[in-house]
């Protein structure tokens, strides 16, 4: 009986750790070199949380340009490497 309880406790602790620490850590997205927890957000949703001017930027995910017309439906996924180039004036 005691062993069964111990087993169940161990199992739930393990699954808790898996869910909350190990998996959580891998569900990060690298944006301009910084890990951010924005898994599942669309680009449009993410941009609303930032100060970027959408008219001044170009976004690449894993080395491929994201067409502006698809920002609202492009979902940031676990492991994505995102580069947001934000242009400033002058030339």
């Amino acid at each position: 009986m005691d062993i069964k309880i111990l087993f169940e406790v161990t199992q739930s602790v393990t699954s808790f750790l898996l869910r909350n620490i190990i998996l959580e850590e891998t569900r990060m997205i690298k944006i301009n070199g910084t890990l951010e927890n924005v898994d599942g957000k669309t680009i449009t949703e993410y941009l609303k949380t930032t100060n970027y001017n959408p008219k001044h930027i170009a976004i690449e995910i894993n080395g491929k340009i994201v067409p502006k017309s698809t920002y609202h439906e492009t979902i940031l996924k676990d492991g994505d490497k995102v580069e947001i180039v934000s242009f400033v004036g002058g030339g």
Partner: protein
Amino acid sequence: MIPSKEEWLAALESRHGASLQKKLSNTTVAICGLGGLGSNIAISLARAGIGKLILIDYDHVDITNLHRQQYKATQIGMPKTKALSDNLSEIAPYISLETYTTKITEDNISQLINSADIVCEAFDKAEAKAMLTNYVLEHMPDKYLVAASGMAGLGSANAIKTKKISDKFYLCGDGVSEVSTETSLVSSRVMICAAHEAHTVIRIISELYDV
């Protein structure tokens, strides 16, 4: 009396080696915007013996341009395409030039720069920079794109860098120094950024793709 075409090529080959010079001579570069960046990029590339430049700008030379752009007092009022073509032809008489005195928009980009191997973004406005970048990366994935962001003011020359963003997309500048009511463009720092762009072009042609 200008040198003959053969003498000109021989001089370039003696500096770059015949193999690199052949690559330079066979390359077409489009320069989008002929201001502080574009006019300086064009002169660097023309001197380096690039075969052909496509020069695009809708604007005319203004007195306020002369502190950083490669035009002369006598050229005020001329279209920049014409003024720069004249200057480049004096510097590098055998370069091939194609000019468009027009505003670049999403509707005309592909026809203006279609024959270019490498595209230099050299605009002034952030919105135009982003528009060209998005368009070229999305619709012309075979082309190399060299863009610039952040070169205004009196910040350190050493803050200007070239970054490789992705396989065919390079970005020069410090990324942050923008033109504002307090900060304007200073010739030396704009020239540094233009030189980064021109040098990136020459490295790409030399098949040196890292930064």
